[in-house]
């Protein structure tokens, strides 16, 4: 998605865009929202610069911040995102259950978050292979023979 940007700049750029959108939302909100908007933008710039600096370091955080993880670091990041997703889903479920219990009118955002998380999970199963060809399917068309033996050295 951000392949046209240099790896080290990808994460800071994403933070800058998302943080600025958040700050803009406060600015549009009006009133005291402008103070929050300025605060959010300052924090965004500081965070983006921090990530850029981290991206140059020779450690795990540096590899992730600099968008140059190897397979192990990518796996660590994927697990962290999986944990994030589970935590978000649990939080949404807890929020939905509590808002229903206390007869709050704010149950809809929690329900939407839960629905989006559930849909994302199903989409992940579909995208990453569960919906592929049945592994039990034998494409040898009834032919059987000895298992192939590798003599590779």
């Amino acid at each position, binding site marked *: 998605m951000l392949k046209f940007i240099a790896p080290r700049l990808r994460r800071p750029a994403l933070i800058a865009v998302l943080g600025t959108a958040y700050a803009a939302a406060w600015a549009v909100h009006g009133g005291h929202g402008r103070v929050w908007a300025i605060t959010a933008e300052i924090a965004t710039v500081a965070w983006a610069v921090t990530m850029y600096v981290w991206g140059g370091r*020779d*450690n795990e955080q540096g*590899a992730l911040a600099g968008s140059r993880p*190897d397979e*192990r670091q990518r796996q660590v990041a994927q697990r962290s995102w999986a944990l994030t997703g589970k935590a978000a889903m649990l939080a949404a479920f807890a929020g939905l259950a509590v808002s229903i219990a206390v007869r709050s009118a704010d149950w809809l955002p929690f329900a939407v978050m839960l629905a989006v998380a559930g849909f994302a999970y199903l989409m992940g199963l579909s995208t990453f292979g569960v919906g592929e060809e049945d592994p039990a399917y034998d494409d040898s068309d009834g032919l059987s023979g000895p298992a192939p033996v590798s003599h*590779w050295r």
Partner: protein
Amino acid sequence: MRNQVREQRTIRGLSQAQVAAALGVSRQTVISIEGGRYLPSLPLAFRIARFFDMTVDKMFDPEDGEADPC
């Protein structure tokens, strides 16, 4: 799962950073592989074996210890 990465690297007088650069992974990953804390993917296992001019089954010993792929 035991592996021969540390032994072979030491025999050849290479640093972890040199091996990491040759394999296209981070130094931290080489350290994790040597310590047995990370089992490399099959493509990386082949790259490691080829780099040290060995076969994968010589480089990685599945008989020794657990074989948790994660």
